[in-house]
């Protein structure tokens, strides 16, 4: 109990003092996570919407189970795969992205992508099947039908964003492997927590955990406010 209490006190102390190492880790965490999230959304939402909207998609029998499997990929396996691809012996070794934030972004994008596609697809499929006909009757182009459907599915699409964000901000295995936890270069909150735990600094590790949770909460809070503003409870 003493450790937990100290952890909360330490967390406040760290935040108050704005330790440069902590600030570095927080900034890098946000950078890597948000960039990976945006890339996954930009590519994943249109694909998920397309799969959800296309009624007679060839290969649907294979594509959908693949997406669902992708949603459950062990992050550390993704990390290992990314490591092997980006390593000097790997096909993309020339990029020099291993042990850099760029490599970490690649790994996290791979983790987030199936979540975005799968949940967007499900959200779009959940929209009333009469909607396209009604919109066409009101004069919508095919593209407009897709946009309106996506907007109708906004609750589910938002869930996709939130799920993907939650998955990657708390992820540790992949970013540890691909980033290397190098101080000042690739150390994020999660890998810092692992390190402090290994060093036996449990209170500090817990404090970092509290900060990470706070970070996640603040973003999700803002997100939900946006949803409510849009008229969705």
């Amino acid at each position, binding site marked *: 109990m003493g450790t937990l209490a100290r952890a909360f006190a330490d967390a406040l102390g760290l935040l108050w003092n704005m330790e440069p190492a902590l600030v570095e880790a927080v900034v890098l965490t946000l950078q890597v996570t948000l960039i990976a999230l945006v890339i996954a959304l930009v590519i994943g939402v249109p694909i998920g919407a397309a799969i959800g909207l296309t009624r007679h998609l060839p290969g649907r029998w294979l594509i959908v189970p693949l997406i669902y499997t992708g949603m459950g990929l062990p992050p550390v396996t993704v990390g290992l795969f990314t490591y092997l691809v980006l390593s000097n012996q790997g096909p993309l070794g020339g990029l020099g992205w291993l*042990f850099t934030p760029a490599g970490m972004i690649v790994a996290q994008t791979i983790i987030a992508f199936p979540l975005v596609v799968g949940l967007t697809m499900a959200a779009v499929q959940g929209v009333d099947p009469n909607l396209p006909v009604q919109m066409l009757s009101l004069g919508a182009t095919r593209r407009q039908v897709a946009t309106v459907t996506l907007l109708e599915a906004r609750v589910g699409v938002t869930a996709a964003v939130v799920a993907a964000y939650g998955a990657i901000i708390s992820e540790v295995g992949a970013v540890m492997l691909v980033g*290397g936890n*190098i101080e000042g270069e690739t150390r994020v909150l999660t890998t810092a927590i692992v390190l402090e735990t290994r060093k036996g600094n449990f209170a500090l590790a817990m404090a970092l955990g509290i900060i990470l949770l706070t970070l996640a909460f603040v973003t999700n809070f803002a997100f939900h406010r946006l949803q409510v503003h849009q008229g969705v409870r």
Partner: protein
Amino acid sequence: MLTRIMTFVLAVLLAAACTGGSSNGSRVLRLATTTSTNDSGLLDALLPTFETEYDARVDVVAVGTGQAIALGEAGDADVILVHARAREEAFVAEGHGTARSDVMYNDFVIVGPIDDPAGVTGTLLASDALAAIAAAKATFASRGDDSGTHSKERLLWETAGMTSDPDTYWYKSLGQGMGSTLGYANEVGAYTLTDRGTFLAQGESLPDLRVMVGGASIDENTDPALLNPYGVIPVHPDKGGIDAELGNLFVEWLTSIEVQEKIETFGIDSFGQPLFYPNSAPWRSR
């Protein structure tokens, strides 16, 4: 039909979960040790004998040195086996452990990229090599995790008259285990301090690294500062929930001449040289 299959699978899973907890005999010894010790494979080779002889199960928790010691302090382990002399003595002095016993030692080496940009191959003393690496601003990878290896590394920097853990671009503080640190060094061509055992065990997966300082085997290690002694300490029974008797039996067993002989030969088959050297009191006075 499907319902019946599902029920069967569920029943099997539940049964497996229930029996998981009580596989072995009566007692459990919780041993906290370091990742490098565990990664060497020594414990996997030795422990079955202990388990059979004393009808017990040894739960090995392999973590960083700091964490292993913290587990001992919290009473979450019965015995600790680490290689950080000063911290071990403090552990006993502060009443967390009953007594410290020598077990074995191994050595550290400095490894580096084949092209050796800092020109340190064959340097006699590790601290001199570090000075050369710093002068050349060659990339150096550090464990950065307060482990026994990291502590040794800091000591060597200080012996060379330099600040340890420098905040500079060529010094990479990884905060990871030995295996990962070596992997990093191999990948980017960096120098690092490693225990010989982990380096040998990783073998072919480190094709671009060579031993720079420390020689081909411990006999050839020219720097006494690179020696790495291990200590075993039973956790003090005052903490409650400690199997003190089993802990003491473990220490007795580990320092016995029979087990020390096994330590002496461990690794010869795989690497042509032993990874550890027995050093217990009974062994020394045999």
